[in-house]
């Protein structure tokens, strides 16, 4: 039994010894495609923090995973100092379900607390054999479209709302026509993966589908990883503005005493250096001058917001993605 006692003692020691001993640690809980970006950004921020701001030593830890799963972990006690997500609902839930941040978190930083944006583009196979150029081409008979499940992934939700918004604008606001368009689109989806990465693997590695709907930054990454000569990116006539929101988590930063550095970390995303890095990783910067500088990689197309086409995330969630919502009705074949 002494062995057992030693083990338990060890567990308690490990549990207790972590905080307070070493230099301050900042934990950034993010979604799963931002690893490369934050690797570069953390290095840049550390340099900035040490020299310009005169801050002390600092370690930045990263956690990546599916966006909603990560939010769930933070609610359950993953002590994130900052969260950097790809859709507002995954931060809203920290306020509503976790009471970890105030409900007005989006007002604390510029641009609804979203320092970067992206949009939904199409990825097709080499030579674009199906001749896909715009949203109308996705609902043609015989075109197979890969979209992750809108109920479980931010990627899928933005794709759904992008199609909905396009159809709504085409039909002059006729919601019945928009519903019919989205129904025809999802009738062409052979498999609903649970997340963006799964959908990419389905399309690029397993060779299923004629076109993949995904974020602009993910499309760039896919072309780099799977070969620019194998896949082409198609820019539709209009698409959705995907805002990537960030927030410091009040409850945890107060506990860790990391609020100043957490704020500085997120504010630096809006700086010229931060926005440059953002653009280099294919996220659209908010800074107009830097966006213009990288105009070759960010085609200028009309981008409509979730607020414009669905009355905000809360309404979109209730109307489209909740159980028994529009998506459930139109996907039930």
């Amino acid at each position, binding site marked *: 039994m002494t062995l057992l006692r030693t083990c338990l003692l060890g567990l308690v020691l490990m549990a207790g010894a972590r905080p307070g001993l070493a230099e301050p640690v900042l*934990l950034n809980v993010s979604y*799963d495609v931002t690893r490369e970006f934050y690797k570069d950004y953390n290095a840049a921020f550390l340099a900035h923090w040490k020299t310009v701001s005169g801050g002390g030593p600092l370690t930045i830890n990263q956690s*990546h995973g599916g966006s909603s799963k990560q939010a769930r972990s933070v609610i359950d*006690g993953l002590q994130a100092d900052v969260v950097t997500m790809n859709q507002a609902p995954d931060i809203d839930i920290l306020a509503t379900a976790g009471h970890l941040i105030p409900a007005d978190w989006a007002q604390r930083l510029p641009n609804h607390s979203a320092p970067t944006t992206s949009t939904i583009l199409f990825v097709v196979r080499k030579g674009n054999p199906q001749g896909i150029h715009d949203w109308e081409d996705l609902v043609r008979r015989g075109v197979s479209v890969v979209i992750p499940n809108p109920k479980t992934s931010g990627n899928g939700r933005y794709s759904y709302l992008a199609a909905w918004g396009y159809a709504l604008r085409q039909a002059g606001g006729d919601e019945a026509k928009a519903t019919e368009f989205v129904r025809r689109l999802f009738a062409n989806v052979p498999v609903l993966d649970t997340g963006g990465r799964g959908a990419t693997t389905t399309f690029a590695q397993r060779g299923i589908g004629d076109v993949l709907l995904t974020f602009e930054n993910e499309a760039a990454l896919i072309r780099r990883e799977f070969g620019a000569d194998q896949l082409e990116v198609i820019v539709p006539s209009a698409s959705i503005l995907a805002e990537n929101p960030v927030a410091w988590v009040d409850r945890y930063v107060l506990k860790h005493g990391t609020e100043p550095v957490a704020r500085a970390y997120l504010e630096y995303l809006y700086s010229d250096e931060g926005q440059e890095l953002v653009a280099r990783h294919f996220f659209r910067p908010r800074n107009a001058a830097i966006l213009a500088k990288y105009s070759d990689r960010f085609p200028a197309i009309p981008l409509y917001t979730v607020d414009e086409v669905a009355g905000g995330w809360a309404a979109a969630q209730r109307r489209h993605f909740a159980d028994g919502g529009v998506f459930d009705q139109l996907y039930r074949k």
Partner: protein
Amino acid sequence: MATAIPSTLVVSPAPAGMTPRATHDPVWVRWTLTAVALLFLLFFLVLPLAAVFTEALRRGVGAYFAAVREPDALAAIRLTLLAAAIAVPSNLVFGVAAAWLIAKFQFRGKSLLTTLIDLPFAVSPVISGLIYVLVFGLQGWFGEWLLDHDIKIIFAVPGIVLATTFVTFPFVARELIPLMQAQGADEEYAAITLGANGWQTFWRVTLPNIKWGLLYGVILCNARAMGEFGAVSVVSGHIRGETNTMPLHVEILYNEYNFVAAFAVASLLALLAIVTLVLKALVEWRHAQSRQA
């Protein structure tokens, strides 16, 4: 009725003549069966294993070792070994104690204890992980208290160790219970009659009798502890270099399109599995020998 017996005796040579044919199938049947078994092994075991190593080495030995020596990969290896190093000895002690209790004593609630030991096998590993989130998570029973006292259980190393221990708990006990039940308590009774005390009986009579079964249980327990994914994934929090075990690290690398690194770390896990299998075969062989002796 008396004639019935000779008649069966007369008939008996015919079945006797058939017996050799029943035990010795035609050559083509034997070869086909062997070939089918070997092909199955080839497609479902050897090829995937070979694929892991081919993918891992696709960009050369340099890329392989770079992936394995990367700080996050090393941290994942360390954490996996640490979790196994705590979970396996704990389960060894608990497993022996539980098996001893169940096999050698009669008491009320014995079948309940046996059922409880099987519980980790019965529930999905994901549920095992969620149990700990419900108990130690911020929204769970002890979450607020733990946060107030700066104690991290889930999304930290203790949670990973707990989840691993829970999932691997039955291996040692399950291996020992049938063995100890088959052996009975006679030798222990004899030892006690001859004046041995409890500890002496355990160390000199019980333990030598179960040592091969015990070793076998420990090896299986260790294999599962290092390979566990589901339960650990739920309680990990996926903090790079801190709370990622090897299986979690493989998944993350794969999701990041970093296939060479993913398969390199996967090949390390495969190597650990192969070492485990060799050890297991060795133990089984020694066990068989010790039985014959």
